[in-house]
């Protein structure tokens, strides 16, 4: 009887171990977003020059919305990649940065030093970040020309990833 109960316990634990294995085999950088395939959340923000930006202004061509900050080292790594991509896709894709928990003056200084790849939008109260389900920086959302979110990238982007994701959207 003892063996039977032990066997039953093991049978119960076995599925648990399977779930653990599945969880460990997943890429922790890939966080599923419920917004994939859905219209991007609306926002109404201003850039560093006080110019208003909203979702409507982005529609008509694919957009890349990147949440970043100067305190985020991976954001600094990917900055030149985004500068380069914004030049390569100049008239085809709209690149937009949303500042996550950072000071506009620091953003201005970094952009002046490392180059501009798009407007940097100030997000008071992190309303846009919360609406997009942002966990940290950097996180990048790829929108098609109709404003539908097609991909969310957690962590820095690479030139290859940008090309791969933007190609079908053009």
């Amino acid at each position: 009887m003892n063996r039977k109960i032990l066997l039953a316990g093991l049978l119960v634990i076995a599925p648990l171990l399977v779930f653990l294995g599945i969880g460990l085999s997943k890429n922790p950088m890939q966080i599923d977003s419920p917004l994939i395939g859905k219209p991007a959340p609306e926002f109404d923000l201003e850039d560093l020059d006080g110019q208003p930006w909203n979702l409507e202004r982005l529609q008509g061509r694919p957009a890349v919305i990147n949440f970043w900050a100067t305190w985020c080292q991976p954001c600094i790594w990917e900055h030149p990649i985004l500068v380069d991509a914004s030049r390569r896709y100049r008239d085809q894709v709209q690149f937009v940065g949303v500042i996550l928990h950072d000071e506009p003056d620091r953003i201005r200084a970094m952009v002046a030093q490392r180059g501009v790849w798009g407007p940097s939008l100030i997000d008071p109260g992190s309303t846009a970040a919360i609406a997009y389900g942002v966990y940290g920086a950097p996180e990048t959302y790829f929108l098609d020309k109709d404003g539908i979110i097609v991909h969310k990238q957690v962590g820095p982007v690479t030139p290859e990833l940008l090309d791969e994701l933007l190609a079908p959207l053009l």
Partner: protein
Amino acid sequence: MMPSAKKLQNMRRLPGLVVARLLSIALLSMGLSLMGAGLTTAQSQPPPGSGDAFVLGLPEGTPLSGRLLDERTEEVSRDIRCPVCQGLAVADSFSDTAVAMKAEVKQMLAEGYSDEQVFAYFEASYGEFIRLNPTAEGFNMVVWIAPVIVLLIGFSIVALRLRSASKAARADDADTSEPLREQVEEDDLADYLDRVRKDLKPTKLEPGT
């Protein structure tokens, strides 16, 4: 009447059996509960149509203010997970994200949005993961029901085992033949008398003790 040797042996084994059963039950309960939780996490997908939930429609509750607003904000924030923390609620974290989320909760409650609308708003962006208390519906019910069922099964097993052990002990008593019983009793008595004799053996007392 002194208990038979076999009965004594059964009685000595009983606590061990009960502990073994309880451990097995605990193992089963834990396994099933965790399995249920794992499945719930694995299936944490947004409900259909929630993608446009950031347009929440008209507030369905009553606009709150003052102390009541603060209290409700705390209560609702306790059920919303801080997405940048390790297992903390928004109410318990001082991270920038949690503070911003708590401010949004407060603003929504002040505008008259119901608790469920507030949860739906965050769920639309982060998925069901954001709820610290998953909704008790669909497959999530496993988390609530499984431990109760497993405990009931466990208690039943313990009760059955205790009953069968007790029956076995009674059967042993009945089956034991009288001469054997007497022999066992005589042996036990002889051992006991030996110990008494040893204890009563006169000891030489030193003068002055």
